[in-house]
Structure formats: structure tokens, C-alpha cells
């Protein structure tokens, strides 16, 4: 059976092709269109998935969509009417979008794929997340927790999942309705702090580590706990209906102080050397972030308790946008009643195309829990040999006007490249460059599914050098100094670097938990640690990614620990690179020193006369 999962319409459009219970290909549309969080119909992602299987859309048995447009429309209509008479603008804009496009999403899929309408199935948004969380877990049975901003009506939902007679069965226990949304509160605070909502929630999480949660009691009153773990959000503090006009109310501003303009400097540095004095106002903002983060964690743990009471399983599957909060995830792992936690590689909306397609296939054709787990490496793989030929004709001195701010090109700079036949020699050469303090862009194999760079579209540096990490932030990634980096570590060194239970090592494969590090290992990991000594590790198993594991091992032989600072390979404001040329453009404009493209290394060389 060939099933195509499709997700689009709000953010992170994606497509996934499942054939006979196995994921053949999956990718976000943004990787093809170079528009971060692209929400348009995933034309190119679908094209890629079908091409990967060598089929056309006419060969599909079914397409499955991750939303119920009618249920969502009723919520949008209701919420804009409820704010009458102050919501005319929101009503008009949303109705134009819904009546013109979004309400007919299923028809659009039918037309774009040239598939009969009876071959299109759709699921409620949280149900899509629930099957997404369960299908990849490999669990026989599990409790399922979904927390995000809002789907159709639900904002948080509790489910159970089990395999029964060779088919998956996912049942709803309870859903918390809009506007009681933990995700929307977190996004509103993100906007209040001067970051971009629906994109930079990670900055709020990073800022929280610099603050003390002195507003936590106030925040607890705003997000009240009710009924043994559930919660309710006091709407007097938020404008969710008019989110983009200003998501927090005057009352919120009275309690927490004025909002930050995105232009104001926040002088926090995760390496402990802030640029400038931390003013009282900046500290207040960090304290608001810390309070919001703490209460978010408490409410998510409350939901876990409630869920465990209703479905007493040892296993938890967790998905939805809030499950991208790696600090809260670690609390779920250590402080909730569940023993094993599974978070899919892409737990946000983009990953629902994978889960729904797997679910439909298994529900119709049958399956087993062991067949469904899938790797995050489902994206495009492109050969570099053709692309690198242009290196010989490149004149770097012509690029000087187009370099990123602060990047300098030494006189006589030339690009060189070498293609290696021997993999050991290749990784030894790259490891030597990393040891020498070079910034290396790494693009090998298939692209990752989801927002985390897991070694195939990554920028790597040695993890102990904070000056190098600062250079990476300023002249390559253009990111705020308050945001920490993460690191990848080969499985053999996981327990010598991470202060976690041995049972938890495998759960840290995809950078989903902010975990404490072993104190004695910290001097070797300084560039990849947050101010509180935690990091968001990727434990790399040889079986999962042999090429990246080999590189880590080669570096470990030189460095002592098989660990590298790993950040996503994308220019600021753009998604991760997909093609070798995109990688080379970023390499040209930034302060990267070398580029690993599958088996070829490109580097910037200075010709001395």
C-alpha cells in the first residue's frame, strides 16, 4: 500500500511517502523553497517523495491530511466572533483566508495530486499528532500527550495507544479546549520578550536560564492548575484572537512591566562574558522568561500526572509544538511518572505527515510496533561531484561586497577542493581541520526531518573553544549570544559526558532533552554548554548514522572525547541547506573555513606570494 501524508496550511508544510508500512521519504517544503516554516502546499516535497519511490501520484492508494478544516474553521469563526466588536480586522482577514483557500484544503489536495476525493482521508489536528507520536515509538502500548498552540479546538490532549489484532488503536481520553493553550501563552511571552513568535520560542527558553523565576507565583495564577493536573489560562492577560496586533494585554504589562522591542540589546552570553552591563530591565525580562518556563514545565508535568492517572502506562509518547521545549522535556523524562519517553524526530506539525501516513497504512493493512520506527534521515540526498566543479572557476575576491557583516576575506584567498575515495582518510582530514579550530560545514547523506541538524546538515566545531563558538555565532550563524549550542557525542562517550541514567541514553538520539553534563567533562565541552551547564545532546549510534559516527570517532581519537559542537547548517532566517550549491553559497558569504560535501572537502586557502 502506498500512502502519502500531507501537512500544510499553517506552518511547516511537509510530505511523507509510506510504502507497505515503511517510510520511503519525508521532507518539509521549506527545504525546497528556501522559505523557513513554509506553509504553502508542499508541491516540491511531494514531488521528491514520489520521485524517491519512482512512482506518480496516480499510483497512490491514499493521501492523508493532518487537519479537519471544518472543525478548525468553526474555532476560527467562533474566536473572532467572541471578540466582537473589536475583532473586525481579524474576522475579515481570517475569513478571506478560510473561505478563499483553507476550507477547501482537502479539495486542493485532490486537485493537486489528481487523486479522486475518496482517496483523500483527513484527521483532526490533535489526533494527527497522537498517531504521529505513537506510530514511530515502537511501543506495544503507551500513554500519549499532545501539547501545542492550537489545532482545531484542542490545545492539549491526552490519549492512549495500543496495538490490537495487528492494528494501531489510538483513543482520546480528554482534550483541553482553546483558548486554554500552553503553547499560545509561551508564544505570547516570546513576542512580549521581543522575539519572533512561532519561530524563536527557543530564545525564550535560552533566556530563561539567565533569570530567576521571581514571577512564578503570578504566572501560576495566570495559568491555574485545576482538577488534578489540568490547567486553565486567565484570558484577562492575553489577546489570542488578536495575536499579531499584540498578544498580551495591558494587564499583563502592568504585572510584568513593559515589553521589549526587538531592537533592544539583551546582553546575556551563555559563555558568561556578556557584552555590556546587564540592566535591571534586561534582568526583569530574563526573570519573566524563567517564570514562564518554570510554570510551563509544572503544567506539562501536571498533564503527565493526569494522563498517568487515566492511563497508567510506563511509556509516554509526546508530540506537538511544546514538545520542542527540551528543558521541559527533560523534566518530563526525570520527574513524570513515566519511565520511557518517546518524542518523534519532528514532533511539530511538519512531522504529522509521517505519523498519519504510517497510521493509515497500519490501520488498513495491519502492522507491528517494531515495523513502524523510522530514522530522521528521510530528506534529499544529492551528489556533490558535479556541483564542486565550479570551484575551479570561482573568484572569491568578487564576493567581497556580498560577505556577511564582519566577515573578512584575506587577500589572495582561493577555494580548493579534494574528493576522497577512502572514507577513513576523508574523516581523518576533516577531524584534523576541526582540531585546528576550523568551522566546518557538513552536508552528507539524506537531509534530516524536523528542526534539528543531526550530522547530515550541520556546522561543526571543536566543542571546547568558546572563542570559536562566539565567532560561529557572530560571523556564521548571526545568532544572539544568549542562545547556547548543542553537541553530538558518539554512544561510547555518552555516559562520560552526560549526567543521565544509562536507560536514558538512547532517548537522547535526536537533541530533544536539555540534560546536565558530567562536571569533569565540562572543560572539554564549554562551547556547547548553556550557562547552567546543560546541553541538548545528540547521542550518535553507528547504526543510525555510520558516516557521522565515523567522523566523531576520528575526531575523538585526536580530542579525547568523540564529541563535536553541532549546529544547524542554515543562514540566519533561512531553512537548512538542501543542495551542495546552497551550502557553497553560505560557505562563500560567511566565516566558515571548510565544507564537507559527502566525499569532497572544499576549503578556503590563502595564496602566499
Amino acid at each position, binding site marked *: 500500500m502506498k500512502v502519502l501524508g500531507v501537512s500544510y496550511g499553517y506552518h511547516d508544510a511537509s510530505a511523507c511517502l509510506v510504502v507497505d508500512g515503511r517510510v520511503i521519504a519525508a521532507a518539509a517544503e521549506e527545504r525546497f523553497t528556501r*522559505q523557513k516554516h513554509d506553509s504553502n502546499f508542499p508541491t516540491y516535497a511531494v514531488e521528491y517523495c514520489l520521485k524517491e519511490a519512482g512512482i506518480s501520484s496516480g499510483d497512490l492508494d491514499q493521501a*492523508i491530511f493532518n487537519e479537519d478544516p471544518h472543525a478548525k474553521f468553526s474555532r476560527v469563526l467562533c474566536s473572532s466572533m467572541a471578540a466582537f466588536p473589536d475583532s*473586525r480586522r481579524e*474576522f475579515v482577514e481570517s*475569513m478571506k483566508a478560510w473561505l478563499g483557500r483553507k476550507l477547501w484544503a482537502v479539495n486542493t489536495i485532490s486537485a493537486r495530486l489528481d487523486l479522486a476525493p475518496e482517496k483523500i482521508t483527513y*484527521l483532526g489536528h490533535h489526533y494527527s499528532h497522537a498517531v504521529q507520536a505513537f506510530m514511530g515509538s515502537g511501543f506495544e502500548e503507551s500513554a500519549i500527550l499532545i501539547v501545542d498552540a492550537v489545532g482545531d479546538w484542542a490545545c492539549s490532549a491526552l*490519549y492512549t495507544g495500543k496495538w490490537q489484532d495487528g492494528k494501531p488503536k489510538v483513543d482520546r481520553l480528554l482534550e*483541553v479546549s482553546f483558548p486554554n493553550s500552553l503553547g499560545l501563552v509561551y508564544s505570547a511571552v516570546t513576542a512580549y520578550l521581543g*522575539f519572533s513568535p512561532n519561530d524563536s520560542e527557543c530564545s525564550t527558553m535560552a533566556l530563561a536560564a539567565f533569570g530567576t523565576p521571581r514571577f512564578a507565583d503570578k504566572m501560576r495564577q495566570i495559568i491555574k492548575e485545576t482538577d488534578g493536573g489540568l490547567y486553565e489560562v486567565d484570558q484577562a492577560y492575553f489577546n489570542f484572537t488578536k495575536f499579531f496586533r499584540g498578544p498580551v494585554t495591558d494587564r499583563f504589562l502592568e504585572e510584568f512591566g513593559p515589553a521589549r522591542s526587538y531592537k533592544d540589546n539583551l546582553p546575556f552570553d551563555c559563555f558568561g562574558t556578556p557584552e555590556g552591563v546587564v540592566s535591571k530591565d534586561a534582568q526583569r525580562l530574563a526573570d519573566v522568561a524563567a517564570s514562564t518556563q518554570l510554570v510551563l514545565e509544572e503544567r506539562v508535568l501536571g498533564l503527565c500526572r493526569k494522563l498517568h492517572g487515566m492511563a497508567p502506562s510506563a511509556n509516554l509518547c509526546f508530540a506537538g509544538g511544546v514538545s520542542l521545549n527540551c528543558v521541559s522535556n527533560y523534566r518530563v523524562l526525570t520527574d513524570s511518572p513515566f519511565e520511557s519517553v518517546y518524542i518523534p524526530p519532528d514532533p511539530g506539525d511538519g512531522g504529522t505527515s509521517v505519523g498519519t501516513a504510517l497510521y493509515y497504512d497500519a490501520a488498513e493493512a495491519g502492522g507491528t510496533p517494531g515495523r513502524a520506527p523510522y530514522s530522521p534521515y528521510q530528506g534529499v540526498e544529492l551528489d556533490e561531484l558535479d556541483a564542486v566543479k565550479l570551484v575551479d572557476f570561482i573568484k572569491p575576491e568578487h564576493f567581497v561586497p556580498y560577505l556577511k557583516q564582519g566577515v573578512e576575506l584575506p587577500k589572495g584567498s582561493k577555494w580548493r577542493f579534494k574528493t576522497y575515495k577512502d572514507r577513513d582518510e576523508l574523516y581523518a582530514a576533516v577531524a584534523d581541520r576541526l582540531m585546528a579550530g576550523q568551522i566546518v560545514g557538513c552536508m552528507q547523506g539524506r537531509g534530516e526531518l524536523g528542526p534539528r541538524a543531526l550530522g547530515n546538515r550541520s556546522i561543526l566545531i571543536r566543542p571546547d573553544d568558546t572563542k570559536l563558538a562566539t565567532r560561529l555565532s557572530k560571523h556564521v550563524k548571526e545568532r544572539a549570544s544568549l542562545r547556547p549550542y548543542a553537541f553530538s557525542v558518539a554512544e561510547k562517550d555518552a555516559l562520560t559526558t552526560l549526567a543521565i541514567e544509562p536507560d536514558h541514553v538512547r532517548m537522547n538520539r535526536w537533541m530533544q532533552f536539555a540534560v546536565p553534563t558530567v562536571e569533569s567533562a565540562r572543560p572539554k565541552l564549554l562551547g556547547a554548554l548553556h550557562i547552567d551547564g546543560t546541553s541538548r545532546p545528540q547521542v550518535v549510534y553507528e547504526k543510525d548514522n555510520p558516516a557521522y559516527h565515523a567522523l566523531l570517532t576520528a575526531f575523538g581519537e585526536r580530542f579525547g572525547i568523540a564529541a563535536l559542537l553541532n549546529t544547524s547548517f542554515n543562514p540566519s532566517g533561512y531553512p537548512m541547506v538542501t543542495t551542495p550549491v546552497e551550502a557553497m553559497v553560505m560557505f562563500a558569504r560567511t566565516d566558515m573555513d571548510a565544507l564537507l560535501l559527502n566525499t569532497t572537502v572544499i576549503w578556503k586557502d590563502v595564496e602566499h606570494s
Partner: protein
Amino acid sequence: MITAIERLKIRLAVSVELSGKPAKVSEVIRGFQATEADGVWHLYRGMKQIDDPRERAIIFGHCLEEESHADAFVKAYKHYGGRVFTPTHYERKALYAGDEPIWKTFAFVHVGEVDATQRFRILSQELPPGALKDCLSNVVSDEEGHVDLTYEMLKRLGATDSAIRSEVRWVRVRRLWERWLRTGKRLIDNLANISLSIVYYVFGALLFGAARRRLARGFVTYDNNKMKHL
């Protein structure tokens, strides 16, 4: 080619619509940024179909330039925008079917460059001193070099002068048609604004109580957790 009417429209826009309105200026900048980013995407796609590494290297430089222009607009936005820059997302569409020769894509890019350069030049002349004026002046000086470069590229890719002229004419007709469609869309958009506003005030007054009660429930009572078909 920019017509006299277009020139007048830009002047009017600067003196009436944009003058002293940073929010409007920031919206205009978002549009410019999106246009430049879209240009890079088309160049990436075009490049895949070119075999000669020399020509690829030329387009590679072109990509760098266009991407740096997109970045320059993001920087200019900071002087006007009240909130964090978020790019406008267009649905990306290939300009030509896959079996059309690649030089046609570059002909389209060439016409776009010519028009953008002229429009940016007029705009930068009309604007009062500021970040956008500076940014546009820099972009114009880069783009002027481009115009010749893209034309040269068409020839390198095997197009004859007469074929180029004919394609450029066709592209101009197509762009004009697209402009008409946009104007029509704006008109429909305005009509929709008026009629939906009427609907809002008529039905909102009747329904807001029920809507508020629905939102106050706290829990989702119906079960939307099953597979559905149209």
C-alpha cells in the same frame, strides 16, 4: 521598462502613502526582500540545468549578490519595522515547464532585473534620506551590472538575438498580464473587505454571546478523533 504612469505612481506612493509612515515602509521592504529571495530561488533552479561549470560559477556569483540584497532589505527593515522581521512567503512556482530551454528562465530573470533596477532607482531618487534610500542606492549600483550580465548569459546559453528579443517581448506581456491580475485581486480584496465587514457587524452582534459561551467551556466535548472523507 517602466512607463510614465508607473513613474508617477512611485512618486505618489512616496509622497502620499509612505511619507511618515514607517509601518507602510516596512511592508514595502518586506516585499522587496521577498522579490530578491525569490530571484535567488529561480537562479538555484536554473543552475541545476546548466552543465558548464564556468557558467555555473557566473550564476553562483549572481546568487550571492541577490541573497546579499535580500539581507540588506532585512537590515533596512529594522529602521522602520515595529516588530521582528518575518519574510513574506510566496508559493514558489517554476517559470517554465521542465522541457523548455533554460535560457528562457534567465530571460525572465533579465526582464525582472531591468524593471527592478529602474523601479529601485526612481524610488531611491524620490525617497527622503534614510536607511531604505541607502539600501536601494547600493542595490541599484549592483543591479546595473547585472542587467548586462544576465543578457550575456542568455547568449552564452545558446539563444540567438532574435529569439531573445521575442522571448523578452513575451515575458513583458506575461508580466503585464500578471500585473492586471494583481490589480483585479486587489479590487476583489477590497470588495471582500467591505462585504465581510458588513457580515461581521450584522452577525457578530447576534452571535458573539454564543461564541463567548462556547470558548468558556474549557474542554472539547465532541470526538473529532477518527478518519474522515469528504
